[in-house]
């Protein structure tokens, strides 16, 4: 039998080599070095160890605002982007609707739009002038024209969550549809024979069986939510959310960008990143626990 380098005992290792190289160079090394950096004051030429000083410096109101904004954004996007896509998916999943594919495609299109373009559109729709479309539509309802971007933090959150809803509803519908298609039809038929109402079927059959998908979507939403930065960067003109008045749009990653890249404080930026990592892991574990993901009998 012909033997070459790619054969025999070593073949599997050659196949997985790209992952190992990439893992060491672009993942493990940066992760370790960011941990070290978080204990350092990094000035070109004279980097030195400063213990926990970076972490102590983060006990400041701007950091609290960043954490609070990221947290609120995550909770609100989950609160919107789980129930609504489930409802849409259930409606789209009912058999015999020829338009269902068209609707799915149309709702998916916003996902294709880059965050830069999406942010630009939002800025133009929510522009401050009286003539701008959102303001002019609200006027007959007795709501005065306002400058949405420089308003208070509730308005900023409304824009951010609105933008997320617009961009991600279509993706979550696809996830839930594929979850729904794994539910055996017989279960619904059995429920119907027993005279179960539509609501009963939704809450007693559909939702419990969608649980794995709900857990999956919630988990990726926790990660996506806490990592959000680009949206606020675009809405507030490239100042990492720090450009927004009173930091209404500042997120934790925005704070990393502001301190690490714009302010040159790489050590401090690393410390923010590690706190972010701890929060994300804690929230996901808590969330998985609430869903009973770690229970043996599941």
């Amino acid at each position, binding site marked *: 039998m012909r033997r070459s380098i790619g054969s025999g005992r070593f073949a599997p290792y050659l196949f997985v080599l790209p992952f190992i190289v990439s893992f060491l160079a672009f993942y493990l090394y940066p992760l370790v070095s960011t941990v070290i950096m978080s204990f350092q004051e990094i000035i070109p030429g004279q980097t030195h160890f400063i213990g926990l000083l970076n972490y102590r410096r983060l006990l400041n109101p701007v950091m609290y605002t960043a954490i609070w904004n990221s947290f609120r954004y995550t909770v609100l996007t989950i609160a919107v982007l789980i129930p609504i896509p489930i409802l849409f998916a259930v409606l789209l999943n009912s058999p015999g609707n020829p338009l269902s594919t068209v609707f799915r495609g149309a709702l998916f299109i916003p996902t294709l739009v880059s965050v830069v373009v999406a942010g630009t559109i939002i800025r133009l729709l929510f522009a401050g002038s009286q*003539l701008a479309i959102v303001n002019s539509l609200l006027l007959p309802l007795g709501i005065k024209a306002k400058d949405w971007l420089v308003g208070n933090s509730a308005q900023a959150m409304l824009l951010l969550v609105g933008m997320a809803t617009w961009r991600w509803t279509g993706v979550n519908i696809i996830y839930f549809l594929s979850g729904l298609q794994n539910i055996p039809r017989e279960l619904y038929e059995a429920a119907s024979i027993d005279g179960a109402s539509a609501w009963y079927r939704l809450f007693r059959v559909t939702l419990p069986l969608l649980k794995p998908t709900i857990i999956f979507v919630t988990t990726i939403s926790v990660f996506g939510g806490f*990592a959000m930065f680009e949206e606020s960067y675009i809405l507030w003109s490239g100042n990492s959310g720090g450009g927004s008045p009173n930091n209404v749009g500042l997120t934790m990653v925005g704070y990393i960008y502001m301190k690490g890249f714009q302010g040159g404080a790489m050590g401090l930026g690393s410390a923010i990143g590690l706190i972010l990592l701890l929060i994300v892991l804690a929230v996901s574990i808590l969330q998985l626990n609430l869903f009973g993901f770690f229970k043996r009998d599941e």
Partner: protein
Amino acid sequence: MRSLHTTTLRTQILISAFFIVICLGFLFPIYSLILASFRPGRDLIRFGITAKTLVPKDLTLSFLINLFTTKNGIYLVWFRNSMIIVIVQNVLSLLFCSMVGYGLGVYEFKGKKLILSLMLLVMMVPLQILILPLYRLLITMKSMNTFQGIMFPFIVSPFAIFFFRQYVIAVPMDFVDAGRIDGLSEGGIYFRIMAPLMAPAFGAMAILGALQSWNNFLWPLIVMRTGDMFTLPVGLATLLTPYGNNYDMLISGSVMATIPIIIIFFIFQRYFIAGLTTGGIKG
């Protein structure tokens, strides 16, 4: 026999009407962007998108044509940069991720469990927290402001590897055994037998990967330093200032960056959706 829960025609019509309204709402921002691209940028800066913008009247293509000539055609440079990155990054990523996925799907070997857990670990850490050390690494590697600097860190994606692995597991091992009997090397089996069988998986990942790198923003924003190296999203983002006369370019440039990807979506819709669901749920 009609299925017991086949909904009545009336409910179907109600549901359809409901979704028509919702879909129009979801498409409205894109419609308004396209119409805005026919309006002068200075009006858009002052008033935003107004009711007048949304009426398709007096449409002029002059802003679209200017897009390719303003600032010595810098838009075309950004477009080209984005294309280069999408193509090269995807080709390399498909090659490497499918190889790793294949290796993890076909072989039993020491350390396999470890590698699978490391992949989960990678997915547990948001890449945004690694941008600072990666940035320093790039400086050391003298790769700032280069294409490889944008591409290298993200060519090998655990998500794509899981997807390919899932696909490989479903292929009967008989194909691999047949290759061995024919005297093919292990690499030969992968390239000659398995890779062609994995064509649908390549399709799904190619499209998802292209979408991601076409719209990728944060990392190129950090890596690319000069205007001639910007990708489309980074270049467009630099135009987002109320100063200067850039809004014409921003709006028509946004339209031209979005339309191609929507067209590609409609051509390959099936693969897009297969890529999302299979990769996501089973990953």
